[in-house]
Structure formats: C-alpha cells, structure tokens
C-alpha cells in the first residue's frame, strides 16, 4: 500500500468513528433490549431486521446478491461488538433507533413494516438529503451507515466477485491502457 491509499483509508476511518442521528435530530435515550438470538452478538432481533431492511433497500437483490444475502447485517453486528468503541456503538444504535422514530413520525409505521416501494421512497428522500455532502464534526447516522453497508458489501466474496472485476494476481503492471465503456472497477486482495 502506498501514501494515497493511507490517506483514503484514514479519512474514512476518522469519519466513520463519529456517528450522529439521522438528519441531525436530537438523540433520545431509550431502553434497549439486548440480543435474544444466539446468532447475533450485539443487535436485538428488531435492530437486526431494521438494518436488514435499510441495507437491502440500499443494495437490493438484482442479478447479483443483496446486502443481506452476503450477510452485511451480521458483519455490522460484529463491528459493533469488536471494532467500535463503546461510545461509537452506543451512537450507532441510538442513530438506528432514531432513524426508525423519524420513519414512524413521517409514515406512521416502523421502516420494517413498510412495503418495499415505500421503503424505497422514504430512503431516497433521506439519501438525497444526506449523501454527496461533506461533514465536519457531526456525521449523520445514515451517512455512515450507508458507507459501512457499501464497503462491507464490497468486502464479501460474492459482493466482489459478482459485481466487480476481481483480479487477485494481475501480473505485469501496465500503466496506461484503454478503459472500455462499462468496464468494471478492478480489485484485488487489498483491504
């Protein structure tokens, strides 16, 4: 890895370490039920279903797998347990809860209870409002959530192999060649 890779990597980690609720709305403290399912580490079933619903709306099944088909929610659960600081985990879970509260305010239903077309409509609004911007200190929950989802998806075997041009051993480096319209991003085994 070289200098530019390091810059990209650290920028992302720095940003992802800070979470704030969706659309900067106030954090509400709530009692949380812990995981009841043996397979889950930190998330409870409702949180897991919610993550699955949002993640599969961001990355649905097409001719390639959806986010949940490659176990993106389970990996986020693992990050909450082993990777994030306690404080970040708290903020993530609060942000997730706030996301659903906002959805209930707007639609009268939990996001998990919406049908897929309403899920799309609702998330599109949030996505347009939050993404493609830069943030200084407070980063909206959804901003981080989406990036985590996408990056996790592209760290899975099927996420990579079925969507991108996976070339673990490229051979001799060629510096300047033509890129065809529609040619996919080439990735190897770097993390």
């Amino acid at each position, binding site marked *: *890895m*070289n*200098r*530019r*890779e*390091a*810059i990209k*990597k*650290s920028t992302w980690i720095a940003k992802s370490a800070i979470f704030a609720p969706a659309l900067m709305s106030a954090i509400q403290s709530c009692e949380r039920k812990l995981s009841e399912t043996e397979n889950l580490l930190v998330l409870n079933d409702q949180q897991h279903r919610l993550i699955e619903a949002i993640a599969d*709306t*961001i*990355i*649905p099944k*097409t001719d*390639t797998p959806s986010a949940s088909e490659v176990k993106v929610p389970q990996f986020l659960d*693992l*990050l909450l347990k*082993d*990777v*994030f600081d306690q404080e970040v985990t708290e903020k993530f879970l609060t942000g997730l809860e706030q996301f659903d509260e906002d959805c209930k305010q707007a639609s009268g239903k939990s996001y998990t209870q919406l049908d897929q077309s309403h899920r*799309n409509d609702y*998330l*599109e609004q949030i*996505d*347009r409002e939050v*993404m*493609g911007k830069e943030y200084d200190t407070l980063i909206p929950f959804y*901003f981080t959530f*989406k*990036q985590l989802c*996408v*990056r996790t998806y*592209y*760290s899975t*075997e099927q996420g*990579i192999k079925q*969507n*991108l041009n996976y*070339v*673990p*051993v*490229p*051979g*001799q*480096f*060629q*510096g*300047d*060649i*033509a*890129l065809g319209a*529609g*040619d*996919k*991003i*080439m990735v*190897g*085994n*770097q*993390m």
Partner: protein
Amino acid sequence: MCTLRLRIALKNAGYAVNYLYISVMEMMNDSNTYDTIVVGSGMTGGWAAKEFTEKGLSTLVLERGRDVKHVKDYPTANMAPWEFKHRGHLTRKEKEQYFIQSQKYNFDASSKHFFVNDQEHRYEYPEDKPFKWFRGYQTGGRSLLWGRGAYRFSDLEFKANAKDGIGIDWPIRYKDIAPWYDYIEKFIGVAGAQHDVWQLPSGKHYLPPFELNYGEKVVKERLEAHYSDRKLIPNPVAHITKAKPGQFKGRSACQSRNLCHRGCPYGAYFSSNSSTLPAAYDTGNLTLLSNTLVHSVIYDEHQDKAVGVRVINTQTNQTTEYFARVIFLCASTLISTAILMNSKTSRFSDGLANSSGVLGHYLMDHHSKVGGMGIMEGGEDRIYQGFRPAMTAIPRFRNVNGQEMDFLRGYGVWGGAYRQGTNAGQVGIGAGLKQKLTQYGPWIMSLGTQAETLPNYNNQVEIDENKNDKWGFPMIKVTAEYGENEMLMREDIYQQIEEMLEVAGLKDIEMHKETPVFGDTIHEMGTARMGRDQSTSVLNGYNQCHDVPNLFVTDGSCMVSSGNVSTSLTYMALTARACDYAVKQMKKGNI
C-alpha cells in the same frame, strides 16, 4: 565447521594465519565461537551475513525475534479480504495491544504478525515530546515491511553539513559509496528510470521502472512545462520488474498485487528473508539464532577489543556468551545504540566506544505528513492494469544549487494518480446505485512529502538502568522534537504542493498538514555517527568504532545527516562496504 575453515584457509592463504588464531579461541569454547557475529537480521544484518559468509567466514547472526522463513511464514500472503474475520477493520483489542504499531498505514490483520506488540515492548518518552517507534522483531526485521523506495544519497547530502556548518562533515563522498550502490542494486533489483536529476543519482543496473499512469503523465507534462527545476519520475523501488531466468535466485517478477507488507510469495521485493539470508545460508557458513536478544558487547580491557556478546534467550531468559573476531551491530538505530550504552566498562563508563560522548545524540527522523490531493478532469477512458506497489517522485528542488530559501536543506515530493474506486458516499440507492458503484470515478492526484531533519545534540536516546524490561534489558527512552528549520520548511512544502496541484490543473484541491511526530516516518538514525574526528564521532568512514576497531555499526546509527530520501539503500551500501573493509583488515591482521 573446522574442516570447512581449513579448506577455506588452504584455498585462501591470506586467511591462514588468522584461522590459526581462531582455532586457539575455539579450543576454549568451540561451539560458541565464530569468525564474525552480526547482531540483527534486518536490512543491514542480512547484508553483513551475506557478505561475510560468501567470503568464507563462519558467521553467527543473532535475531531477537522469532524466525520467519521466506514464503513458508507468510500466512496471509494469498488471503482475500473476506477471509479475515474483521476484514480491513482493526479491533479494539488490536488497537490496545498495538497502540503505536496500529497507527501505521501498513498495519492490519494481514501484517500485524510482523509488528511488535506494544504492550510487551515498552519504551519511554517525555509527555510533551511524543516519539513513535515502529518495529518488527523477527527474521528480516523491518525489511519485510519497508516502503521499498531505494534511493541514493548524492554529494548534495554528503557535503551538506560541511557547507552549512551544521553537525560534522561526512567522512565519505558520493564517489566512495557509488560502487557499493551499484553492487547492492544489482543484487536486490531496483526498478527505476534513468534520468539526469544529479541530486538523486540513478543506478546503472536499474530494471525497467513501473510505468506512469495516464493521470501522472498529464501531471508530469504540466509540471515540467511550468517548472524548470522539477521533474516527476517513477520512484526507484526495490522490486523485480523484469528478470532473466536465474538472475535473482529464487525470486521472480512483481505480480502487481500491492500486498507487499504480507511478505511476497514471489520474492519480488527485496527483504532479508527473500534475498540476503538465503544467499548466506547457501554458503553453509551461516548460523542464525532466533529469540536471542543481545544484552551487551563483551569488551576485553587487556586485549583492548570486543571479544563477543552476551545474549539473553527471550523464551527461557537464559544468558549465554558468543565470541568472534569481528562484531557488527546491525540491530537498528536505537537498539544498536542502546547495546553500546549497555556495554559499560571501566574505560568506557558512558557506553562502549563512546569516548567522544556523542553516542545516543543527534537522533534524526525525516518529517512528512504535509500534502494534498485534487481531482483531474478528463482521461475517463484511460486506466491501469494491476496495483502498482510504487509511486512517483519529484526529487528535491529547494537549495539544490545554492542556498535560496529561509530554511536549510530541502524535501522531496511523492505521490501518484489513481481512479476513484467504489464511491460509497455518492447519492443513490437500489439497482441504480449498484450499477454506479461498479464504475470508476475520476482521476485523483495526491502529493505528499518527505523532508530533511537537521542533526541536533538534544535529540537523543538514553537507557534507564534502573528500569529493565522483562528480559533484563534497560528501558529505552527517546527525547526528540523537530526544530525551527523543519517547521519553516513545512510552510514551504504546503505552499509548493498546493501550487503544484494548481499548476497541474486539478480541481477541488484539499490540503492537509499535521503536526509531525518524531519516529513517525520510521527513519530513526544518527545516534552513533560517523566522522573523521574521534572526539566528535563514534564511527570512522568505514563504520568502524574509533575506539574499538573490531566493532562496527552499520545500521542507521551511523548517519551524519538525514538527507530527505529514504535511507535503506544507503545503509545496505555502507554495510557491504564495511564488510569488505573489515575482511581486508582481518587479512592484514589488523583486527
């Protein structure tokens, strides 16, 4: 062993007398006595091992870490991201155990086994002067992890101190080391471009450089059209880009995976593990002991020379002594210096070979972490094939042909262009997003720096004999900070990088400048410097201790000034040169 020595002695009459002497010592303790002892198996220790063993000398290499065999002990080399439990993320536990090491760009689950556990390997620094010490204790040391930039110093560096009246003059000039750069480059394989930038000489044995990509070609053209004093070149790197069969024994060409820090199963980049140590083993003259920490050098007052080393087995804590005619310290700057400090005698009460009193002082590291990046318009239909383990460089252009700035010395600029990959921050959800995520984004050009640090007496390493680590080696304490000259230079670096990104026609330029932390560039050096005058230096022009002629130090300790380019190639060249000198002195019976 004795038979072998006899054979060599007969073959080379020059050694005959000396071998007779060795055999007397061997009668005392044959199994613990060698012709040469090399402390450390990294960048320089590997070279000392290769040079001595190839000249027929029985050589003991002492490595404090575990053994790492080329290929066999690179467990992650071919693993895919999804095969790592936490993929690219560091766990809280890893960040606790490796609280310093994990801050380095090439530390992750695929490479952490080549870094020390910070909780086990403590060192100290004053609260207001942080020092970051990145280490790999294993066969090959940090040669497994290095950035692989293989740069020559020029007389711009070797004459710098004399010209500015800073520190002391280097005892050597470019002409003294140039043949040794050739020698090293030929063996390790350096991919680089032939160019006429005199302050960063190119080597005659260079392999073809890694190609520039489209973005870099555009930037090169624009920069070179604008600045008469700047060239953008592929940085020379210790990688095999092209090899004739058998040219590099057991090593083959780079496969552009850019996973170097996991250890290369192709042996495409230079490490002790892939290159020098196998060559040394092939001679039959190498003994390498792992988990063997050198506590001190044994100095014999009556013979007035170093006779051996005292070691501690890091697994059993057992102490042993080994003996040799010549001892090379190649244990990395801070460790070699600390070993000398820990080898006090009545004659050398401030540390062995320290009659000058400069041992431990004049610690240097380069400074870095000023840079910027910008987006390039156009070139959407150009791409590269593979993941290049190299960058581009704009060699030093400040104060090259005379003092022109309000600071001394200079800096180089490094960087590269790439197409933006999966852009997770973009607007969009669903099938449309999935499609867009598979497509490359624009060209991005990024530039950073590596800059020279002046030698300063107050920047130093010490040992605290009242506080031992768990193996009984004194605690190492580093006190160092950057000075006014470095800070002034950083202002200019920031301005120049911003200006160059603008000249290159880039948009949305983002600049950054961090507070530099000593050690962070991982080029610690200078604490047992070379010099002509034994009252102001520890080593002479052949890395030989002025005070103890059969003791040499050839790692970064010997550096007199830092230059701005990475120093490994210079350490290797100085080591091979010192070995050549030491063997000649042995033949003459001088040591």
